[in-house]
C-alpha cells in the first residue's frame, strides 16, 4: 500500500509544488531528448520517474539540477527559475538539495566519514565536533556505524549506495534526488534501501525524486509515478493509476514486454548503412 492510500503524514499531494517543469524541450546536438515535458512534484511527496534506457529520465534529472541548459521551457525548483537564476541563487538552491548518484560518487581518496562530512565542511561554518556527530548520526541511520574509517574501495555496492545517501542527506535537504537506488543491489539490500527511503520521508518530510527502472521498488515507495517514453510523458499517476493505465507503452514497461515499434524500412536501412560508401 502506498503512503497515499495509507493517508500517512507527509504523504499524498500537498497542494504546493516544489518542482514545476513546463514545456521542457532539450536536445543533444540535433537529437531531441525531451519533447515538451510538463512535470511537477509536490512538497513532501516521493515522485518516482520511470522509463527505459534512452527515455530521457536521466536528462530530466540533470536539468532539474541545473547541470544542463534546456532548448526551451521553464523549470522552477523551490521558487527559483533555473533558466534565469544567478549563479548565487543556484548555489543557495543547491544547498537545500541532496543528490545520491547511481554509483555513490564518493571520493576514493577520502574515508567514508570524510566523504559524508564534505558538504558540511564546504557549505557551513559548523564546529568540527558538530560536523563529526552529524556525520555519525547519518551513518547510524544508514546502518554504517563502524565504517567511518573505511575507504570507498573497501565497501560493497550496497554500502557505497548508503554512504552516498548519507552524504546526500547530511545537510538535511528539503529535496532529494536519487538516481537508480536499486541498481546493482541484491534483492534484500534493495528492500532495505526502499525502507530507508520511506523512513526518511516519514521522519523529516523530505521531498524525493527517485529515478529508477526497478518496478518493485517504484511501486513500493512512490506516491506518484511519472513514466517517460522516448522523451515524452506517457503517464503520471499513483501506483494504482499506473497499474490500471491502458497506455500500451506503460503496460509494456510494467509487464516487461519488449517494444514493438513499426520499422521504417528506409530509415532503418539508412542507419545501418550510414558508414558505408
Amino acid at each position, binding site marked *: 500500500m502506498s503512503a497515499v492510500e495509507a493517508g500517512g503524514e507527509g504523504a499524498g499531494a500537498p497542494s504546493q509544488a516544489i518542482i514545476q517543469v513546463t514545456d521542457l524541450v532539450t536536445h543533444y546536438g540535433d537529437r531531441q531528448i525531451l519533447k515538451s515535458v510538463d512535470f511537477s512534484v509536490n512538497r513532501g511527496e516521493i515522485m518516482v520517474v520511470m522509463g527505459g534506457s534512452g527515455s530521457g529520465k536521466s536528462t530530466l534529472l540533470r536539468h532539474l539540477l541545473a547541470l544542463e541548459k534546456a532548448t526551451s521551457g521553464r523549470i522552477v525548483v523551490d521558487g527559483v527559475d533555473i533558466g534565469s537564476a544567478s549563479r548565487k541563487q543556484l548555489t543557495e538552491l543547491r544547498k537545500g538539495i541532496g543528490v545520491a548518484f547511481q554509483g555513490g560518487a564518493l571520493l576514493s581518496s577520502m574515508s567514508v566519514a570524510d566523504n559524508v562530512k564534505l558538504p558540511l565542511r564546504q557549505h*557551513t*561554518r*559548523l*564546529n568540527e*565536533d*558538530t*560536523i563529526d*556527530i*552529524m556525520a555519525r*548520526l*547519518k551513518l*547510524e*541511520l544508514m546502518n554504517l556505524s563502524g565504517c567511518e574509517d573505511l575507504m570507498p574501495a573497501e565497501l560493497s555496492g550496497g554500502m557505497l549506495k548508503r554512504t552516498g545517501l548519507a552524504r546526500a542527506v*547530511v*545537510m*538535511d535537504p528539503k529535496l532529494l534526488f536519487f538516481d537508480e537506488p536499486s541498481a546493482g543491489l541484491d534483492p534484500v539490500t534493495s528492500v532495505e534501501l526502499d525502507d530507508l527511503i520511506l*523512513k*526518511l520521508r*516519514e*521522519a*523529516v*518530510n523530505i521531498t524525493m525524486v527517485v529515478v529508477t527502472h526497478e518496478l518493485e521498488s517504484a511501486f513500493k515507495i512512490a506516491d506518484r509515478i511519472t513514466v517517460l517514453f522516448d522523451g515524452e510523458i506517457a503517464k503520471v499517476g499513483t501506483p494504482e493509476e499506473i497499474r490500471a493505465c491502458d497506455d500500451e507503452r506503460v503496460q509494456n514497461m510494467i509487464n516487461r514486454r519488449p517494444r514493438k515499434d513499426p520499422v521504417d524500412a528506409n530509415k532503418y536501412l539508412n542507419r545501418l548503412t550510414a558508414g558505408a560508401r
Partner: protein
Amino acid sequence: MYELSRHLHYQVLHLHGEVDLNNSPKLREQVLDILEQGQSLLVDFAALTYIDSSGVATLVEGLNVSKGKSLQFGIVGAGGSPLQVLQLTRLDQVFPLFAALDEIKE
C-alpha cells in the same frame, strides 16, 4: 530561538521556532556555557517546531559533556517533528525525555 529559566537545580533552555544550521552554533555556545558552569540542563522542546541534524548534534554533544561532568541533561515536552527526528535516529532511547517540567523532581 531560546529563553532561559530555572527549575529546581536545573537551568532550562526553552527552544522555540526552528533550530537549523543558521542558529545551532549559538545554541551550542549556550549549552556548553551552562555545562561549563557546572549546571544541569533541561532543554524544553514544547515550542520547538523543527530541529535539524546540527541542532540534534549540538544536544548530543551537550549530553556527552554533561556525563563527563556528572551533570544531568534532559529533554522536556518533545512532540511532533522534533520527536520524530529523535525517534528516527533512536536518540529517544539515549536522552532522558520528560513530558513536562512538573514531572521532574529534585
